């Protein structure tokens, strides 16, 4: 037995921008017969497949894992594969992620994000053992054991899918180009909390540098829009706390903090 899905025609307004033709982004309306179980991404895919093949957008997994389909839906950053089209009225405004340069239609420039991301050294730094390895030319250790309690300290911050919604929501990202931003700081902080890592000192220098964590004014918008409940605002403010503690240790301990 098959059940009939209710179909509602909605006006989907998509931001269009062709760098070869358009001076600036413009709006284009499409009438889309949306089925009751559709996500916003289904409506955009319908337009691309059935109405206008020139619409450009990114998507991949359709299950809120790849982080590709972030767009502004009625002015809010949303993961469109996770957002039901029926949560909105008959007119839905879909725009590229805010705070990013627009490459084409709903596709934004990622290079600035990737640069911020790699600048926080998002890998396990093993400074001491790397030095020993160079000297002996033997791998010192293949695995680094970690208890469940140690894993629990950073696990939440490792759930980020790099969807960049937090960058779109952040008022500081919009106004301070140097700011590292929520996801990058959360990722750096995730490695600082990792018991296997020895790169905290290097990352604290980055956190206190040009894109300083202290630019964050704790608007908390990044955590409000995060589709995976990573709570980047908590990470950023814990990183601030860590930087202050380290600075205070440096004042009272002869060998400084981060030891």
């Amino acid at each position, binding site marked *: 037995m098959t059940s009939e899905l209710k179909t509602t025609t909605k006006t989907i307004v998509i931001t269009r921008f062709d760098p070869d033709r358009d001076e600036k982004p413009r709006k284009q309306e499409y009438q889309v017969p949306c089925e009751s179980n559709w996500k916003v991404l289904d409506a955009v895919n319908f337009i691309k497949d059935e109405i206008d093949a020139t619409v450009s957008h990114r998507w991949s997994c359709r299950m809120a894992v790849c982080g590709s389909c972030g767009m502004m839906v009625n002015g809010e950053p949303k993961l469109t594969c996770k957002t039901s089209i029926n949560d909105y009225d008959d007119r839905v405004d879909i725009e590229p992620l805010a705070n990013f340069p627009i490459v084409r239609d709903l596709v934004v420039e990622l290079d600035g994000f990737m640069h911020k991301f790699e600048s926080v050294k998002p890998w396990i730094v093993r400074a001491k053992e790397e030095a020993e390895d160079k000297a002996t030319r033997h791998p010192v250790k293949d695995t680094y054991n970690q208890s469940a309690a140690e894993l629990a300290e950073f696990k939440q911050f490792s759930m980020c899918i790099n969807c960049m919604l937090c960058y779109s929501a952040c008022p500081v990202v919009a106004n301070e180009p140097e700011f590292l931003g929520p996801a990058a700081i959360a990722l750096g902080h995730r490695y600082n909390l990792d018991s296997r890592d020895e790169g905290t000192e290097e990352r604290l220098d980055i956190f206190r540098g040009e894109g300083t964590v202290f630019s964050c004014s704790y608007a908390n918008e990044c955590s409000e829009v995060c589709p995976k409940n990573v709570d980047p*605002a908590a990470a950023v403010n814990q990183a601030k706390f860590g930087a202050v503690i380290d600075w205070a240790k440096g004042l009272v301990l002869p060998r400084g903090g981060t030891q």
Partner: protein
Amino acid sequence: MAGPAHPDAMAPRKPGRTRTAPPQTPASWWGSSRIRTYLLFDATGIIYFLVGFLAIGLISDLGNGPIAWHRALERLGNPIYIAFHVLSLAAVIFVAVRFFRLFPKAQPPRIGPVAPPPGPVIHVTLYVVWIGITVLMTAILAGVIF
């Protein structure tokens, strides 16, 4: 979109070969109750700035002798000053409540070997300390103690 973001927001390290449209801020910012609350939180800074001026003026009056001090006290009885102080009190309560709500999750999982208490304990402690200090200061200013 609401308006232009900083033209270099999330800009690539090197300009690409393709022309891009400049970044825009979200249209929801000015209509969102969350952002309005945040802007109100930031705007309370203006009130603290004015309170600072008022306090410096009062210290100056205190240094200028009893006559100037009594004039200052009379001035504080003016309804405009009273309204300003009520507004300042509302701003302090608003900021404290928002700060207390967000403070627990800003605590790292541990500071050295010590783990901070659970969030609800921190939350309640902040309120208890705040109310305790307020009661103590009120008792001192009312002459109940000292």
